[in-house]
């Protein structure tokens, strides 16, 4: 194109390469939009990066592990260096995991990095998801990305579970046995699915190889695709930001990708990897040599899955043993109900954005984040959801809570049974109260200023605390949030006296909307008039 300039000056080597690439890939146009892309600074915006980087770490270490791991259930007799396993019969998968731990130099470290990174990946996704939830970052235009993220979380759980099962040790084998039992509980198709998945009766000789291909290829492949989509959408939508001076719904304020975020985000990868490597160096995870090879007739107490499955485990543990036998068939409600609840509870958080947008009827784009207190109903719902989740987790570890807090196992199960229902209700009510209280405090602060801590004695002897008025930036920040009016159904009879048809759905929507935004469900934010009246009226104190 611009041959004239090219001939005039000698382009540096880097530029020549870039020119070459641009002629084929169009990189200059890409870079024009993205090289100085702005990212806002907030620690909670880096939670997603923790997930991204731990995912990369998992892939790197996972590839290394495949070099040594044998996904085979052929029986071998162990004669390696680990003394307490000498002469013990085990699968090749278990034996090769012992070899990775005791024969391959650094193999143990890589195994531990892989496993710790997996736990942190899931924990990071959970916290990231909650950050997005509580700040309302899932609103238009980001609903699809919310679903991508949710799918990544769910797939991450199953990828983790299949990986945890691969060493064929006594603990993971027990987990696989549970999976098989749960599959058997499925009406009509259960026994067929079980036979097909395990290549016959449990445990058979196939599941490690099959889980292996699911764990290293199928699920991570899908996750990689979703992850790329997730990142493209983050770039495309540009990041959300908290309200503040100069920060509007129409801009994004922060530092440019080049150089600041290149260094910060790039550096953060090394920080995450470094922290996980240190953890893997100092803390043992899944010591399969102490657990022993899987045998379907052996078991250990404290048989738990990794934490991200603990919530499902808890639901299973506290469920009463309901079973219906009719017409020669068995409906295993004791297993089916908790598994269904597991899906329903996860699904509830996934579809929440669509419910909220239906209630508000808001079709606008939202790029300014809510402070959780300014969306009391949403925040209360989120806290209730977390409460259910963590009560499930408590149930999943009920035996360990029992021994470590000297409680009765049965009492904890009953606690979980009751608080599975009561907990979220209490959490919802309490959270909403707290949010409204915080809203009132913000209003107070805007109208009366900040408590300065200075005590002044008035001429007539009264002591007052001096309230400092807020700076304009703070006033703006505290009042930048939007408040919705509840949807009205309107009169049920139109002007001609004809009854108007109002569908049940409309009524429900109006009811929900009132619950969200009606009287006593949000504190009207201070108006400029109120502020003027107070500040001009009787001075500020």
């Amino acid at each position, binding site marked *: 194109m611009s041959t004239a300039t090219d001939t005039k000056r000698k382009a540096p080597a880097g530029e020549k390469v870039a020119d070459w690439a641009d002629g084929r890939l169009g990189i200059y146009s890409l870079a024009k939009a993205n090289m100085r892309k702005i990212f806002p600074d907030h620690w909670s915006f*880096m939670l997603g990066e923790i997930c991204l980087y731990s995912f990369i770490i998992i892939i790197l270490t996972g590839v290394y592990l495949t070099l040594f791991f044998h996904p085979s259930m052929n029986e071998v007799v162990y004669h390696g260096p680990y003394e307490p396993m000498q002469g013990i019969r085990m699968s090749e998968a278990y034996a090769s995991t012992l070899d990775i731990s005791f024969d391959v130099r650094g193999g143990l470290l890589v195994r531990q990095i892989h496993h710790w990174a997996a736990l942190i990946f899931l924990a990071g996704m959970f916290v990231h998801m909650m950050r997005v939830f509580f700040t309302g970052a899932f609103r238009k235009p980001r609903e699809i990305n919310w679903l991508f993220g949710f799918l990544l979380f769910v797939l991450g759980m199953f990828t983790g579970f299949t990986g945890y099962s691969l060493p064929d040790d006594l603990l993971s084998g027990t987990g696989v046995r549970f999976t098989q039992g749960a599959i058997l509980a499925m009406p009509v198709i259960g026994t067929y699915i079980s036979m097909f998945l395990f290549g016959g009766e449990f445990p058979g000789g196939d599941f490690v190889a099959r889980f292996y291909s699911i764990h290293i290829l199928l699920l991570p492949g899908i996750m990689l695709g979703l992850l790329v989509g997730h990142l493209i959408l983050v770039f495309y939508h540009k990041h959300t930001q908290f309200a503040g001076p100069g920060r509007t719904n129409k801009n994004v304020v922060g530092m440019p990708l080049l150089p600041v975020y290149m260094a910060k985000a790039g550096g953060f990868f090394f*920080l995450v990897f470094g*922290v996980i490597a240190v*953890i893997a160096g100092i803390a043992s995870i899944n010591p399969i040599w102490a657990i*022993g090879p899987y045998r379907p007739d052996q*078991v250990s*107490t404290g048989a*738990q899955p990794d934490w991200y499955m603990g919530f499902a485990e808890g639901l299973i543990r506290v469920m009463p043993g309901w079973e219906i036998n009719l017409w020669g068939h068995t409906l295993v409600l004791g297993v089916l109900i908790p598994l269904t609840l597991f899906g329903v509870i996860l699904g509830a958080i996934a579809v929440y954005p669509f419910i909220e947008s239906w209630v508000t009827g808001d079709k606008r784009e939202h790029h300014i984040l809510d402070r959780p207190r300014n969306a009391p109903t949403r925040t209360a719902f989120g806290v209730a959801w977390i409460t259910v989740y963590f009560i499930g987790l408590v149930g999943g570890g009920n035996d360990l809570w029992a021994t470590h807090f000297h409680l009765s196992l049965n009492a904890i199960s009953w606690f979980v049974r009751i608080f599975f229902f009561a907990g979220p209700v209490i959490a919802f009510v309490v959270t909403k109260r707290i949010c409204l209280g915080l809203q009132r405090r913000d209003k107070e602060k805007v109208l009366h200023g900040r408590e300065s801590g200075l005590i002044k004695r008035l001429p007539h002897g009264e002591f007052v605390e001096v309230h400092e008025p807020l700076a304009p930036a703070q006033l703006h920040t505290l009042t930048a949030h939007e408040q919705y009016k509840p949807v009205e159904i309107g009169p049920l009879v139109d002007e001609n006296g004809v009854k108007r048809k109002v569908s049940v759905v409309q009524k429900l929507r109006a009811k929900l909307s009132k619950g969200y935004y009606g009287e006593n469900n949000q504190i009207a934010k201070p108006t400029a008039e109120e502020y003027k009246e107070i500040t001009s009226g009787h001075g500020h104190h």
Partner: protein
Amino acid sequence: MKKLSARRRHPLAAVVVLLLALAATGGLYAAFAPASKAQADETAQSLAIDEGKKLYSVGCASCHGTGGQGTTDGPQLVGVGSAAVDFQVGTGRMPAQQPGAQVPKKKVIYTQAEIDQLAAYVASLGAGPIVPTKSQVSPEGADVAKGGDLFRTNCAQCHNFTGEGGALTKGKYAPSLEGVDPKHIYEAMQTGPQSMPSFPDSTMPEQQKKDIIAYIKTVNSSESASPGGLSLGGLGPVSEGLFGWIFGLGALIAVAIWVAAHTAKAKKS
């Protein structure tokens, strides 16, 4: 059996039992004791029984009855053997302090000599498992790997993979095996204290008990290796998950706060 228990409160019952037990012990003793030392040991033994009886009537009789016949507060001790006494008293479980789901391990209040005397007395009430010898519990000649396999079949279901303990129903629990005297582990397997079932020699031969003890001592002692680092209590995924959340994610969030924080300005605003 019923007839017997109905008459166990007969004034002469204790005497009869005692006589029977003495006869049994004596008989057993005659059968097992090395011949040359028999004379001296016999006197020592009967002295120990006398001393034990005194200790028993002070410390144990209120719950277990004056002749070990048992009461509503404590089980019968006839036939439990010296191993049971050595285990229960030697781990401080007996004398029990208060009723509860389970009698816990506590500070031992008797000296080993006193425990031996008590054991001798209770053993004299009726034959039962006897305290193992040093060689019966020593790791020498034990197959650790075989012990591990036996441990996973017979013990891990309650005591966890490496003997960290675990929960039973209604507040009962299988205690941790860390730091437990091999002798006591052996005795527990023989006698089945409290909720624990027994693993008598008829179904689990002596050598296998030795293997199991050797395995426990290999994987769960202060010298046991945890190659990967902190063992986190050896409790499996729950403690790993807690550690991952608190120290893993916690550290990363702390780092994220540093990365995202604004650098200090030259002048405070």
